[in-house]
């Protein structure tokens, strides 16, 4: 770069040619760096997937580099035969669907009034909402509240305490303010349209994209969350997938009986199966999100874009 600039100064007349050379060099470096970024992100992901499909021996001895070595699905068999994992999957699915439904509904119910200029006390309520993003009572009072509400160790604890995200409300409110023209409201009101009806037949049909954004953010949040389940739930039958994952993947807590059916008697083979069970489990747990991700990617991007507009 420095060299290019020096030569530019010297040969001012050949500016155009030199510059296009500089830009060509830049393009090469740019493509290289982007490819590097692509590789750095992609490699661990490919490695995990390949390891999950490889034989135990290959995984443990480090033979797997890029593609699966010694095709073997025992890891996946172990995953799908593991009762806790299957239940966890179903629980997570339930928490995700009900939780997201409530989330999206409440978010619209909060965001629409806040977006209306004639909503009495709008400034006050905005402050009441936004303040909670800057200050909180902390973990222990939150836990005591959920306990005093009698939600400990119930499915409610996974849904009600997280019924609405303040950030999502702000995001949705901004969207309403930007996209629903005041004239539309005035015209509807002249025609005697009530606020309920306006929300139902005008606002919601016009807000498909923000509803999609909210649905996706909430759904992913529910699917990936583990902390509330960890502090609020005690019984395995209620556990979402992430808790089961934590027990198996991080605390290394695999019941021997769960693997017994594979007749792996010696410790080495069991250890090997554990490792592959882990890789398979990582894949199975991440697939639901990563499979839909490419199709909905632009919605997430859009969400962040709206978020960066000041309301």
């Amino acid at each position, binding site marked *: *770069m420095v060299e290019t600039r020096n030569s530019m100064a010297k040969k001012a007349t050949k500016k155009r040619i030199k510059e296009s050379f500089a*830009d060509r060099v*830049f393009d090469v470096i*740019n493509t290289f*760096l*982007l490819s590097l*970024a*692509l590789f*750095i*992100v992609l490699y*661990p*992901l490919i*490695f*995990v997937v390949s390891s999950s499909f490889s034989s135990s021996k290959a995984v*443990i001895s*480090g033979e797997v580099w890029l593609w699966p070595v010694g095709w073997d699905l025992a890891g996946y068999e172990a995953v799908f035969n593991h009762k806790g994992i299957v239940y966890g999957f179903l629980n997570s699915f339930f928490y995700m669907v009900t939780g997201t439904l409530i989330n999206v509904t*409440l*978010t619209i*119910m*909060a965001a*629409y*009034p*806040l977006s209306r200029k*004639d*909503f009495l006390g709008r400034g006050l*309520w905005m402050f*009441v909402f*936004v303040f*909670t993003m*800057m*200050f909180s*009572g*902390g*973990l*222990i*009072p*939150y836990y*005591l*509240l959920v306990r005093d509400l009698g939600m400990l160790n119930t499915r409610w604890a996974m849904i009600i*305490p997280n*019924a609405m995200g303040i950030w999502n409300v702000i995001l949705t409110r901004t969207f309403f303010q930007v996209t629903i023209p005041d004239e539309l409201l*005035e015209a509807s009101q002249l025609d005697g349209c009530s*606020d309920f009806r306006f*929300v139902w037949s005008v606002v919601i049909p016009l807000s498909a994209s923000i509803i999609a954004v909210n649905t996706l953010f909430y759904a992913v949040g529910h*699917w990936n*969350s*583990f*902390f509330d389940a960890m502090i609020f739930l005690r019984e395995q039958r209620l556990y979402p997938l992430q808790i089961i994952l*934590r027990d198996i993947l*991080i605390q290394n807590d695999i019941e021997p009986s769960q693997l017994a059916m594979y007749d792996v008697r010696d410790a080495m083979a069991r250890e090997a199966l554990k490792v592959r069970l882990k890789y398979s489990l*990582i894949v199975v*747990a*991440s697939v639901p*999100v*990563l499979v839909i*991700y*490419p199709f909905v990617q632009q919605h*997430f*991007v859009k969400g962040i874009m709206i978020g*960066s507009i000041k309301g």
Partner: protein
Amino acid sequence: MVNTNRKRGLSKGILDLKKCWQLYALFLLPLIYVIVFKYVPMYGAQIAFKDYKFTLGINASPWAGFKHFHRFFNSHEFWNLMSNTLGISIYNLVAGFPFPIILAILLNYARSDRFKKTVQMVTYAPYFISTVVMVSMVLQFLSPRVGIINVVREALGLERINFMGVPDYFKSIYVWSGIWQGTGYGAIVYLAALAGIDPSLHEAAIVDGANKVQRIRHIDIPGILPTAVILLILNTGQILNTGFEKILLMQNPMNMRTSEVIDTFVYQVGLASQTVNYSYPTAVGLFKSVVSLFLIIIVNKIAKRLGGSSLW
């Protein structure tokens, strides 16, 4: 629509309330949620100044003044927790900050649209990996026996290292795995800022014979600087809030010396230990919340003065 006739005073307020009762009907449930799940815990945080007794509850437990705060400030944990929390946050802030900017600029100058889209999509994807899966991937890769890093090290003639057991590695593992996971996500806001730059600036620069590097230096970087400054300042306000869940999952008895931060400490003392002690961890948590609030307010003032943009 909006009636701004001030003379009517109270009756006007009632009239307005009547007019927008349906809006309030919509708003009621979310408001109850916010009050119950956000403000009631703030009220409950008073147990930081009390000796919480299970049988007496929040209101009836006896007051204890600043006892728990004194205990925390004078405890041997205090400086360790503060230095770990600040150490991890600052490391994360400094190391993690440039990458999204660099990625966004590179993406902005990608040769083909398809390549750009591919790189953007792939780098964004790890953001959706759950904390549990992310940490377990890190543990698998760094495992002393079967982890690929150690397999490679052995192949190169180096000894195997139990990375997660070495306290000095904890911060780096936390920060760099976070950079791997978050750079693509972080780049989006900068891409938006880059897209917002007036294209006529670039056109004029091209006519004047500026090359791409010069355009980056003199158009793009100044163009995204306000966004970068605001984000940097806002992140500074969050400096006591570490990636609590991830740290909790990455902790083990061997790395506890460097991995215990305020948030995990509150959890360990308050909810994970056998002895029930709610007041002390609440005090520790409240200390953090109050300091954070002041930081956010100060930092926002600075942001407002610098660039005219702030959170509120």
